[in-house]
């Protein structure tokens, strides 16, 4: 990244801390938004008709994350994924292939399965019409009474389904899924993330949280670092929200937040405070795997900090060591990726903070009918120790956003969102306004508008 002279003063810590970013990323000062991108009508967060259109033209036609491959690990395993009013079943067949079907009996529409489980086939609970794990119609009681029913016409409706990095994606529109396969849809995001080996990760936590805000507002809260200094000032000691680099990648985007250095907004922070904040206050501190009080070996007998390398370098070495001990392959990661937050958004509603050996994932889904509500999933995906038994995937749990298990950082984010949604209804507030630090949000809106304009 080239820092022009006129903006160098805003990013002085890049040189001071020897921060490195990929060439393709940009600083907010280098980004120009159009007026159309800057102003976005509030009605698009509050209008039920708009929500209906977004479901029909965005969600019912796009690739989207449904579940992890380990959640359908064995033949017969199924997992229900719901978007809007539509329910889908992701299932692994006897042949080991993961497929996805519309979750409705072809007879009279009864939902075939709910939640997750294992079954040899999908037998309807109403009249026992039976479908194979490949979706084939295999049995109808008293079949001679249904002379017009053919096996081909009455097989389960299959939708697009593919797996990338252990994430099972579905596309409710099978034709669009064929036109643009998953890897093509992901584009460079898939290439970027390959060195993290996320296919080795396991779903270690899945919390479902019902939020009183539009699905876009929910995911947008995590697409910029501009809010950090005021919403989460307690974490400024270990991350630099000012020197956060941004990049749009087709329909998707990323931002890179340096960790192990304090925000440029703070005049001075002790190394010990950076250490404590990094290991204890981060939303991704679950990945540190060990007690995180200040190690006595970092101080001399007078209590003076003795580490002779920058704390950021110490953290890189720490993660490298933990990775080696756990049998992880970090050879494809840069030194920066060992510690920094590589935050990716996959359109429409999936994002994650990537770190060596773990990531924190979020998924925002619309409420089926109410634009003022959404379903928000929080995931912890962790690369287990390769020398230990692989843990079972964590069960899905529903929690309130105020639940302590959500953690302080996320509860701070969530407590903003209901206020955001209420404010959107102000009669005089016709538009929300975005600035260049929010370019990932404007990119997100551009993609939505493009899809809404399609027939």
């Amino acid at each position: 990244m080239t820092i022009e002279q006129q903006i160098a003063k805003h990013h002085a810590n890049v040189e001071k801390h020897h921060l490195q970013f990929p060439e393709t990323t940009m600083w907010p000062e280098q980004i120009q938004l159009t007026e159309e991108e800057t102003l976005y009508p509030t009605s698009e967060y509050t209008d039920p008709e708009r929500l209906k259109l977004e479901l029909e033209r965005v969600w019912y036609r796009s690739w989207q994350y449904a579940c992890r491959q380990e959640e359908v690990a064995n033949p017969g395993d199924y997992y229900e994924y719901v978007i809007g009013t539509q329910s889908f079943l992701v299932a692994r067949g006897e042949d080991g292939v993961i497929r996805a079907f519309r979750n409705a009996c072809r007879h009279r529409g009864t939902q075939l399965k709910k939640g997750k489980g294992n079954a040899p086939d999908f037998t309807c609970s109403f009249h026992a019409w039976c479908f194979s794990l490949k979706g084939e119609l295999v049995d109808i009681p008293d079949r001679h009474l249904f002379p017009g029913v053919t096996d081909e016409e009455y097989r389960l409706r299959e939708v697009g389904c593919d797996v990338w990095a252990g994430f099972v994606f579905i596309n409710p529109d099978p034709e669009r899924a064929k036109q643009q396969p998953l890897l093509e849809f992901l584009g460079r995001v898939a290439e970027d993330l390959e060195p993290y080996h996320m296919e080795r990760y396991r779903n270690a936590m899945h919390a479902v949280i019902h939020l009183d805000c539009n699905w876009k507002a929910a995911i947008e809260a995590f697409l910029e670092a501009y809010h950090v200094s005021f919403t989460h000032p307690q974490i400024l000691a270990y991350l630099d929200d000012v020197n956060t680099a941004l990049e749009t990648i087709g329909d998707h985007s990323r931002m890179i937040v340096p960790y192990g250095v304090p925000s440029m907004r703070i005049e001075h922070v002790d190394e010990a405070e950076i250490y404590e904040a990094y290991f204890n206050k981060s939303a991704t501190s679950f990945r540190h795997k060990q007690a995180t009080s200040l190690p006595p070996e970092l101080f001399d007998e007078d209590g003076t900090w003795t580490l002779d390398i920058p704390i950021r370098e110490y953290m890189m070495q720490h993660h490298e060591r933990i990775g080696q001990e756990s049998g992880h392959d970090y050879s494809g990661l840069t030194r920066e990726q060992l510690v920094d937050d590589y935050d990716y958004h996959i359109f429409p509603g999936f994002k994650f903070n990537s770190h060596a050996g773990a990531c924190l994932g979020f998924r925002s889904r619309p409420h089926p009918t109410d634009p003022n509500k959404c379903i928000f999933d929080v995931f912890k995906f962790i690369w287990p120790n390769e020398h230990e038994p692989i843990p079972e995937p964590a069960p899905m749990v529903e929690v309130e956003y105020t639940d302590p298990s959500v953690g302080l950082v996320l509860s701070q984010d969530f407590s903003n969102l209901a206020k955001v949604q209420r404010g959107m209804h102000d009669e005089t507030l016709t538009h929300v306004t975005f600035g260049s630090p929010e370019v990932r949000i404007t990119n997100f809106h551009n993609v939505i508008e493009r899809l809404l304009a399609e027939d």
Partner: protein
Amino acid sequence: MTDVRTKPLASLDPVGEPVVVVLQSQVSFSAEPGETVYAAAERHDLCWPTACGGRGICGLCVMEVEEGRENLGPIGIEERELLTRLYGADGERPEVRLACRAKVLGDVTVRRRGVKPRSSRDGDKT
């Protein structure tokens, strides 16, 4: 918090005024009665961690009172709400205060890392 530092304190305390001792940073300084801890530190050209410059917004000036809690002015609703929002249950403990809001009425000993004379800061490390 664990105080792992035991070095002698660098003292900035004129006779007669309340004294603020900052453990973990090894400094002490005088405060005028009614002056906030943060303002007194600034007056002595001490750098106290903050992102908002002592406006009661960022909460980064948080400190833990070791001795003399009664020698600080009472905690206000806004200070307590901010501490709770930023630090959860930790922020609800009575000994946890914001340096920019706590008024000094008498001698007090607090814990806070990173309080340093501006001239002695090591800017290359942090």
